[in-house]
């Protein structure tokens, strides 16, 4: 809390101008960082100093800053989100770094994620996957009583585990094949586990997987990097469930 605990870090940070295909690493030093500040607050501090010097700040995305909106996402020292497990970039705190440490900061990189500027990327591909079936078709007003279908607690809990995905894209960024299988698998699993999801199960699996391929995401070859970086601990078991759902659907549509 006292200023004497403040630290200095050296950043090796990716900068890329809007509309340009190539970027580069630029070095900055930030001092006077409270160890209680978050990683993004450290970047705020960097940007304040850049503005003061009349330079352009480093653009990065963030919103809730408490790990739930999925907006932020940086590769820090080679690891998507954070060297600390199961958190999003915004939940990483500077007390995890040593005074004088050098930190490399890059955007999430994957072919379907187009770079926009500096650390900001376009993840619209994930929305398009959802648009192909990441829902249950229930128009407003058409529902029966909420308690009409009992759902075993274990199933509901598993569905919730899958539904916890924040759609940040870290799974894609960490995958050697840039696969979106954990993201897509989590959504397919959530609805496969719930009775409400069954009527559309086949269509959902076929369409979402097809869209995933169309967007240029790679195949899953079981590296498991996605699970390791997932800020919400989404299990790779969801990919297995997606495969089962997909093959069931393919067989049935023959």
């Amino acid at each position, binding site marked *: *809390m006292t200023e004497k605990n403040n630290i200095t870090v050296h950043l090796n940070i990716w900068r890329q101008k*809007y509309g340009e295909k190539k970027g580069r690493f630029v070095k900055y030093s930030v001092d006077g960082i*409270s160890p*209680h500040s978050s990683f993004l*607050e450290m970047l*705020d501090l960097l*940007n*304040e100093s*850049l*503005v*003061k010097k*009349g330079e*352009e*700040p480093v*653009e990065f*995305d*963030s*919103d*809730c*800053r*408490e790990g*739930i*909106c*999925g907006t932020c996402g940086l590769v820090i020292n080679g690891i998507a989100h954070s060297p600390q497990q199961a*958190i999003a970039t915004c*939940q990483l*705190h500077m*007390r995890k770094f040593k005074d004088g440490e050098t930190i490399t900061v890059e955007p999430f990189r994957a072919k379907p994620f187009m770079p*926009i*500027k500096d650390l*900001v990327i376009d*993840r*619209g591909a*994930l*929305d398009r996957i*959802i*648009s*192909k079936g990441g*829902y*249950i*078709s*229930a128009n*407003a*007003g058409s*529902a029966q009583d*909420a308690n009409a*279908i*009992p*759902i075993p*607690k274990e199933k*509901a809990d598993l*569905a*919730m585990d899958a*539904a*916890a995905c924040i*759609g940040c894209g870290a799974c894609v960024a960490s995958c050697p094949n840039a696969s979106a299988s954990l993201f897509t698998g989590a959504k397919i699993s*959530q609805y496969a586990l*719930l009775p*409400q*999801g069954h009527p559309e199960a086949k269509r959902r699996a076929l369409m979402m997987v097809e869209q995933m391929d169309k967007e240029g995401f790679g195949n899953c070859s079981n590296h498991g990097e996605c699970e390791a970086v997932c800020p919400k601990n989404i299990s790779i078991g969801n990919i297995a469930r997606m495969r089962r759902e997909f093959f069931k659907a393919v067989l049935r549509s023959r």
Partner: protein
Amino acid sequence: MKFDAKIPGGPLEQKWDSYKGHLKLVNPANKRKFNLLVVGTGLAGGSAAASLGELGYNVKVFCIQDSPRRAHSIAAQGGINAAKNYQNDGDNIWRLFYDTIKGGDFRGREANTYRLAELSLNIMDQCVAQGVPFARDYGGLLANRSFGGAQVSRTFYARGQTGQQLLLGAYGSLMRQVNAGTVEMFPRREMIDLAIIGGKARGIVCRNLITGEIESYAGDAVLLCTGGYSPVYYLSTNAVNSNATAAWRCYKKGALFSNPCYTQIHPTCIPQEGDHQSKLTLMSESLRNDGRVWVPKKEGDKRRANDIPENERDYFLERKYPSFGNLVPRDIASRNAKEVCDDGRGVNPTGRAVYLDFRDAIERLGKQVIADRYGNLFDMYLNLSGENPYETPMMIYPAPHYTMGGLWVDYNLMSTIPGLHVLGEANFSDHGANRLGASALMQGLADGYFVIPNAIGAYLAGTELPPVSTDDEAFKEAINYVNTKVERLLSIKGSKTVREIHIELGRIMMDKVGMSRDEAGLKETIEKIPKLREEFWQNVNVPGSGDDLNKNLEMAGRLSDFLELGELMARDALMREESCGGHFRDEYQTEEGEALRNDKKFTFVSAWEHKGDDKTPEMHKEELEFDRVTPSQRSYK
């Protein structure tokens, strides 16, 4: 200015039903001919856009984030209320209605609040049908928790991520309509102005946040679902992009702004530490179910919490409110925390925090039970503060969290500008002077799934709407406004950063228009803010250009609007010579220091009219009539 709340006649319980029965309808084949512009994709905007798409309207939706799924609603933790009475504990629509109107300190509209309580049932049905994975008991039925001081257990939840799951449900429905072609999605757009043609809201002007282009969209109605304005205080529990810009521009174009001074300062947040913080994370209110709030009895006691013996601790909420104890409503818990800190008994090196202690609950129930209930929150606290709440009490302090004020709307959710509808936290309508826990999610979804699909049809069917194009003068004017503003912001090149001025505004607001207010402080604020505004326009430094992604420029634009809104909040607070809900005036308190309402003079909704940039706004009143409930003094003793 004349305005009418258009509350349907008949007994309270039948108003909504009879309203629906008498609405003008749009022929199903004609719905696709109407273009609706929905701004915002939180629970209100997301659910509205999806439902309107389902009905067959042509919908365009806009949001600031890169995906509609990231709207600030995603961060809601605790739960959503519904008067299902699944727990057989005496709940019903009336009780939820009464709790909400009483919780709002009798400063809300009866008819709206009753409708909200009724719709709570439909919302739960809808969300379960969408596959929202709510918590369930072993029998497979939905689980409930009691929340925010309610005496019944009516809050439904999905772990600590209720907002996320509800929003993903609405977002899924929205994306389904995108796929069906009824809804077109425009992410990374910020609405900066409204186009009024023929006296009606007929379009919006946005800045494309990637390319910097100024874009115009014409339509038959505009739905503003842009959330609350807590970041006027700089630090709040809201997301960093939450803002008032769209609502503020509509105010300046003629929509009335109601009750701007009603803000909710939430008692259980991470305390402020220094200037490095960018937000104050909320620690769920549910923690107060088992945690005990205390400070040392002695002023300036610097001992560690665990070294302070039991008889030297002041469990001030339990002492002052024996029947509700730690579960008193948010405004009361917050104000009391502030008071003990003002007395010099606050903890943390800053002196601005109180303890929330689980020692006794762990002793009574065991560590495992506490871990089951709050494990993820304890982990979150540990990660944020570096301290372990199983061993040492949490430190918390109130932070701005929710704004009850907003654009004035009638029963149809329409503002005083015909065609401009306002939904969710952006309107003023359902919570009076204080919102109860788990009621904001309910309101956003009630507005979007159920109210607007009915109300919009009636508006469109009953209104002459000649075709308009984006070549209209109104659009040119709006574009000109935006371009001039962007250029001006970029050309000042002063010596202060946007953030520095925002921090200054936040300090003034928190000090003088925060948990307690008084005449002198408010008058001072009304003088100070225009000076700060002037400094902003002369001395801010916004780097970069307007031709691509420039977050400093976005923030500067939003701050320029907060710098005007803050003043209106102070004016409203000064005008309201009483204490009610989240608005506490030091001059108006009972002998025991509780909020003292003045029903004779202040049973009204304030509705401010913009009169021009250099003129004082004019206040209008919507008198509140209580046909069915009798305003009583809230007592939680």
